[in-house]
């Protein structure tokens, strides 16, 4: 597998360490958060494990040390692209409603 690191370009996957699906942003803690809060449960434990298009965190540990979100298809192994993790959630929040949560 090759991963198009936004910083380094196309690099072999051996340079990266996978972390798992990027399905929800980390919840922001206010004053009275409780661990039973469903948003925390979802953030930590709920994974759709969809067969098909996925967004996954990868760490370019043997490269530029960037965390990237790789967009790929687990059925065809096609890699569509990658976004810097630092930009991923901001971009996702800007997208119109109907494109999220599919």
């Amino acid at each position, binding site marked *: 597998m090759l991963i198009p690191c936004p910083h380094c370009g196309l690099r072999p996957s051996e340079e990266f360490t996978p972390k798992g699906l990027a399905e929800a942003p980390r919840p922001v803690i206010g004053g009275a*958060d409780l661990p039973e809060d469903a948003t925390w449960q979802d953030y930590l434990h709920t994974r759709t494990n969809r067969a098909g298009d996925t967004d996954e965190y990868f760490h370019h540990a043997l490269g530029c040390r960037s*965390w990237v979100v790789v967009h790929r298809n687990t059925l065809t192994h096609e890699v569509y692209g990658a976004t810097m993790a630092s930009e991923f959630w901001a971009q996702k929040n800007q997208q119109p409603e109907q494109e999220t949560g599919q």
Partner: protein
Amino acid sequence: MSARLPQPNRLESGGIINRDRPVIFTFDRRVYQGFEGDSLASALLANGVKLFGRSFKYHRPRGILGAGPEEPNALVEVDHGPAERDPNHRATMLEIYEGLETFSQNHFGPLGMDVMEVNDLISRFLPAGFYYKTFFFGGLQAWYRLYEPIIRRAAGLGRPPLAADPHHYEKIYTHADTLIVGGGIAGLTTALSLAKAGQSVVVCEERDRMGGSALWQGETFDGQSGADYVNHLCAEIEAAGGRVLPRTTVFGVYDAGTFGAVERCHDHLAKADRRPHTARMKYHRIQARNIVYATGAIERSVGFKGNDRPGVMLASAGHTFLGKYGVRVGERATVFTTHDGGYGTAAALAQAGAAVTVLDARAEANVVIDGVTVIKGVYAKQAHGRMGLRRVDYDGASNGSLDTDSLLVAGGWNPAVHLTSHTTDRRQSKPVYDPEMLAFLPPELVETEAAAGSVTGAMSTADCLTSAQAAGKKLGGKAVALPTVASALPVSKPMEMWAVPGAGDAAFLDMQNDATVKDIKLSAQEGFKSVEHMKRYTTLGMATDQGKTANVTGLALLAAATGRDIAQVGTTTFRPPYTPIPVGALAGHHRQRDYEPFRYSPIHAWAEANGATFMEAGLWMRPAYYTRPGDKTWLDSAVRETKATRDSLGITDVSTLGKIDIQGPDAAEFLNRLYTNGWKTLPVGKARYGLMLREDGLVFDDGTTSRLADNHFYMTTTTAHAAGVMAHMEFMHQSAWPDLRVAFGSVTDQWGGLALAGPQARACLAKLFPDLDVTNDGLPFMGVLETQWNGFTARIFRISFSGELAYEVAVPADVFEAFWLEALRVGAEWDITPYGLEALNIMRIEKGHVTGAELDGRVSMDDVGLGKMVSTKKDFVGRAMSQRAAFADPDRAKMVGLVAAKPDDKIIGGGILFASADGPFDHTTMLGYVTSVAQYSPLKDRSIALAFIKNASDWHGKTLYVVSHVHGKSIMEVHAESPHFYDPKNEKVMS
């Protein structure tokens, strides 16, 4: 040059062997002579050898079936001593060289008289599934103790080497625009087309030289011989910047244009010709945009009784031995064919002086060859001759018997579609069965793939060249002028005949696994109708050859037996590797000492020279203890080092701790969010102990972090978690808090560090830094100073892991050894004693300090007694989840200290804690477990330990029992107390 010895089956001319260079080699200790360019198979056939080995199950005598990588029978061992005994070489692929020693495999006693051949006589009782069904008798025990060892000895493929592999193997990355798999005439033509268009191309050919069938079919190209035309093509490709790699097997196709290939660099060379320190094999990881499958086709046999007798081979094999090696496989040859292609072989043999008869399965056949007898509408019914073919019976439109010494079978061609199937998951289609061609063809190819040559189903050389031109065009190549091919080889589609009428047992499909026509029928009859089940039931298509000559025939027969079409039955999935590759080639230099890199402290050489014994801590090598005169055991050393430190002054190397430099206006806020405790109020010049949680609320790591300036922090982590903490910080910063203005980097390798510990630590430090105020006021506990040592920056941290008055001093790694030696020199006054991890372990257990043994990913802050280190005024990693009710359960095991009741007892690490010595000792009564053990604590004059136990504080002062189920179930009495054995009020560290 040695004298020429007679080679009875070698022709005086023809082939591309070098008759001026005779080569001496042995097979089963007999000496033979061949020529440079011979394979072991061709050289032995030239010498009249027919018997090459014994079959896997029935131990039937076997000869040669093919002439290339598909060979299932003739597997031999190359033996040059215990470390270089290399089994399962295909005799057809093994190139001979001066001094080559080879042995046949899989027989008990001499090859000609194998006692296990009794299996063949009782073969009717050993059908598919026999082992599964029979050896249930006596149960599993009988299987493991009695049956399996015997069966394993009787059924084997060669013997493994007995010593470590002495060879070098290399891994290299190879990049190309297009990879061409297969260096036959089609692959080379496609490569030339692409190279001329400016693409970088690599052509990999698994055999000893480029050219494929052009080397033996006897056709001419623009008047040139096949070999000459191939040389011309290769020269043109290389002139256009392309690469041509013979002896290189592309064994797998992977994602995103990644391909695995192994190049054999040494195996064909005499030992004297192998350059020392060069690689036996190179593993190429090929990265290419496009791939061309020019993998050719593999001929198949037909199922009839005795079709495995030595002397029965594929027609293309007999033709190859003749055309490429100048070896005539028989004087009275019979060709059994289902299509026109067999006549080309018949003609070539006749021209070489053999008496040839063709048995044509078709009633209608129109090829006429001078001097060749043709019998139409008949099939080979049975071949006779246990050690070598003598006679063949035929039946059909007419019947009879022929005296013959070689039977060449032309049953049709199977395109080598294996590699196109490695990506089945992605393309979601498998090779496609073509009922016209009676063969599986490659599935629909994507735009970066093309196929050329006979793998496409093309039969004549002219058609192969046309397909190559099309493949080149598809991938952006330039048109190349195709040569005029002068051919005398008739081609036609085959007649459908997978097995002859009435074929059953001893009609072999998979020669390597002794799977017969009868076994397939039995499989279908017993309900194993899926091709995957049939494969596992009959073992057809398994082992080293993976059924290259057998698979398609097997599933055609399965289709017939179950009343389905071949397309419905489908194929099993071809997976990498295409042919066996040594694991050594994949491992390369990543083995033994070079498996992983080692990391060394800047004073490693000093420690080595001063009696240190090292232990691995992650990749680091850390001194465990320093042996001094009088130390009898490691424990003597560790206890001596502990006492010296507690009584006066010790010194230890802490360079391996993870060190992270953190800077930026939001650096304090960043730490606030990473650690459970608060950091904004930490003054400049102070250090603080910090605890990190995982997001699920469990403890992740601990360490001290110091504030060097308002916006500048210096963090330390445990040695083991340094890389994990760094990645965690990067993840949180980039994924959750990208707005924080902070930057950080690992400085672990940039700083060397030592700890001075013991009552004289301050005196020693004052002598090292005479201008510095190191009094309790000038440098209080948790104080940090940045100063100079001989013009280099030195950072002094008053922190303690040992429980003594202690300082850690960091200087740039380059000058750390000098600084260490200086500390030893000035510390001599107090008998400064270097201590290792074992002494440190004793001291930190006495102090009740936790390490990775306690922070094992299952404990909460509270469990290790650090529950108060939580700021409730802020967000931090793990905060929400650390408030889960389960973490407040009083039943959770918490840390406790243990002291052995008897002075000589050594508490066992990992032991389980129970309240009673009477048992039962199981999960219903278990209270906790031991995490860290000091075999001897000078403080307690016996063994102590840290452990986790339910209701920990209730047990203080009480008796418990440690039981280890992995150490003989010994029951040891211990007393529980606070884990802070030593200086619980921290008076020493504050002194």
